[in-house]
């Protein structure tokens, strides 16, 4: 029995030793292959395939000693925070623009400045780089360039003799007519943990279309506060229109975005509010009606219709990254490899935060994708741009903006209290060093 116990103790001790030793990283000898670990936010299988086909495999072929380990992590924000807090984590990871300040202030991420000095990311839009600055340093690399547009069912418009609205009166009339015809005016769902931030999409449109980009910027820069009638008016108008049933018949609180989009695909809704990320769906979803897009209509006289611009995801570097130089090289290659980038975009990848000529796309590309990128180019060149909430608003303000609006919509709180709270958070963020990017 004694011998049996000793044997058992030995086995247990050996098992413990093996598990501890296997967790220790092996040193990389010179000339050996290095593996860059990249963690990416949850995305579709198509998107992952595009990453591999157009970015990872070409890069690995050109750099045989560098391997890219691209891992998609659902709920990446939660996982990465825990990993960084534990001093581990991937070399680089995707994050939302609104999270840059928190990561930077925690001291767990590194600056990309030394790579800018080496000439990397030279083509990235200056405004996009500015939106990723913290304390004068580039805290993150902006990736997808996003623009907001209002999509509409062309066949439905024609059938009912409607035309695309360009001002408040036309917009209100068409929404009322659609509702009267038992058609959901705007398909929009905001119920689920991720999808609640879909309020940012449509509320950003209201802010830029009513208050206007200049007032938006003035508010975010601290030059005016929430009591400015342009700001209050924009929010009040959204609440009024929601209460009229124009925003998915008040079902935003119970429908998620996929269920809301199903209404559009089933031709039960006239409009839907989506950004340029919709290219992914254009390629992968069979839509059997004619549709197009336009500027969200002007909601106040004197404010021109505009396209809100912003950055989708950004890439941040772990300050303890094992292979930062190789990681920077990889992301720079995504920006500079024109052929593969164009091919990826032709297959549904979002454009990056750099200039892109849609005329380079092959003729076989879905015409709606070409239309979308031409629309974005036109908006940029004619300076008909506004600002998205997720790029040009501090993270804490953005979070409160989309998560607390339902208390106002459902009559459980007042708009005054809601805006007062946003203002307090904005003042805090500005005092802590947050700056409007442009």
């Amino acid at each position, binding site marked *: 029995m004694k011998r049996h116990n000793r044997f058992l103790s030995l086995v247990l001790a050996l098992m413990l030793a093996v598990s501890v030793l296997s967790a220790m990283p092996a040193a990389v000898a010179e000339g050996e292959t290095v593996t860059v670990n990249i963690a990416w936010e949850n995305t579709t299988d198509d998107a992952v395939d595009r990453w591999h086909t157009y970015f990872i495999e070409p890069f690995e072929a050109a750099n045989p000693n560098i391997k890219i380990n691209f891992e998609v992590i659902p709920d990446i924000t939660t996982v990465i925070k825990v990993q960084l807090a534990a001093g581990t984590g991937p070399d680089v990871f995707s994050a939302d623009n609104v999270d840059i300040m*928190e990561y930077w202030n*925690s001291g767990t991420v590194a600056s990309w400045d030394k790579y800018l000095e080496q000439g990397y990311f030279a083509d990235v839009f200056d405004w996009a780089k500015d939106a990723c600055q913290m304390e004068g340093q580039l805290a993150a690399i902006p990736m997808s360039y996003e623009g907001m547009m209002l999509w509409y069912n062309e066949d439905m418009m024609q059938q009912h003799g409607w035309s695309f609205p360009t001002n408040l009166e036309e917009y209100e009339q068409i929404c009322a007519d659609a509702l009267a015809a038992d058609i959901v005016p705007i398909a929009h769902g905001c*119920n689920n943990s991720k999808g609640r931030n879909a309020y940012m999409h449509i509320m950003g449109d209201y802010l830029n279309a009513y208050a206007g980009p200049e007032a938006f910027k003035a508010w975010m820069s601290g030059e005016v506060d929430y009591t400015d009638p342009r700001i209050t008016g924009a929010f009040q108008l959204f609440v009024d229109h929601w209460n009229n049933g124009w925003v998915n018949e*008040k079902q935003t609180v*119970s429908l998620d975005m996929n*269920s809301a989009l199903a*209404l559009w695909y089933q031709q039960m809704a006239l409009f839907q509010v989506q950004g340029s990320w919709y290219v992914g769906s254009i390629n992968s979803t069979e839509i059997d009606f004619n549709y197009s897009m336009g500027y969200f209509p002007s909601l106040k006289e004197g404010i021109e219709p505009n396209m809100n611009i912003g950055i989708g995801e950004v890439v941040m570097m772990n300050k303890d990254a094992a292979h930062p130089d190789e990681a920077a090289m990889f992301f720079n290659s995504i920006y500079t490899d024109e052929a593969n980038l164009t091919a990826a975009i032709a297959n549904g990848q979002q454009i990056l935060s750099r200039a892109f000529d849609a005329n380079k796309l092959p003729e076989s590309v879905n015409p709606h994708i070409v239309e979308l990128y031409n629309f974005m180019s036109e908006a940029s060149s004619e300076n008909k741009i506004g600002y998205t909430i997720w790029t040009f608003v501090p993270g804490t303000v953005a979070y409160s903006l989309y998560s607390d609006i*339902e208390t106002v919509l*459902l009559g*459980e709180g007042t708009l005054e209290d809601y805006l007062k709270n946003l203002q307090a958070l904005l003042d805090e963020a500005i005092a802590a060093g947050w700056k409007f990017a442009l």
Partner: protein
Amino acid sequence: MAVKGKKRRFSKSHFYVLPAFLLHACFVTVPGLSMIYFSLTNWTGLGQAGFIGLDNFRRMIFTDAIFHRALGNNLIWVLMMSTVPIVISLLLALLIVKLRRLQMFYKSALFIPYVIASVVASAVWVQMYNKYFGFPRLLNTMGLTGLAAVNWLGDPKLAIYSVAMVRMWSQWGFFIVLFLAALQQIDPCIYESADIEGVNAFQRFIHITVPMIRPTLSTIWMLTIIGSFLTFDYIFAMTSGGPGNATEVAATWIYKHAFQKYEVGYAMAMSLCVCLIAGGAYFLFHLVDREVDA
């Protein structure tokens, strides 16, 4: 000699428990105790934690109206879960235990919801509640337009009950199986003698059935009460605490602060509070249970 032998047995049994104890200490006890420290800080989940004393607790008790509402929702959840599914499952068990044929079929059919993952069940029920594609559409075609117009997940007054219904649906199969096992343990002779004495069905249920299945009933109640303070999955998957904060419970509010708002210190303070409440509820239940037993 006997004392020495007893000592040897004592150290051997502890040795075998040691690995499990170490794992528990590493992943449960130590993090649990560190929660006390972090609840006194303004830790964002990243970087260093700054000590702020009792500020988090002051905020929780005096300022955070949504946390108070969340605790209220937990109480509603406790009351619902400790009554409705238990009553329904006991009644169904009483019916099924009498069946000679198809008992296994009914047991299995009613148990199926329990084995469906909570997130999957939630996703299905969100679609079932969908005004355009779910059963409201069916109600509409049946002419029940009033009922069809009900916004099950979007009405702040109804949403928590709509989500609770899904949780109950998933749970009562499990309770039925437990109650069936307990009912089948009761010696039929007791019922026969009761019949001879002229006892009616209600008296038989109150004076024989319930006392005989009391240990099972106590266990189910205890698990339900503690579980209700920790409820998270169905609510988060179906409503995320919305509409507004109508279905917010302690766990969802804690999650949002910890993982979405970068307020881990405050989330820890709330977690500590919920731990104490759940622990208090358990001890109270244990006391009452012991009194009834006595």
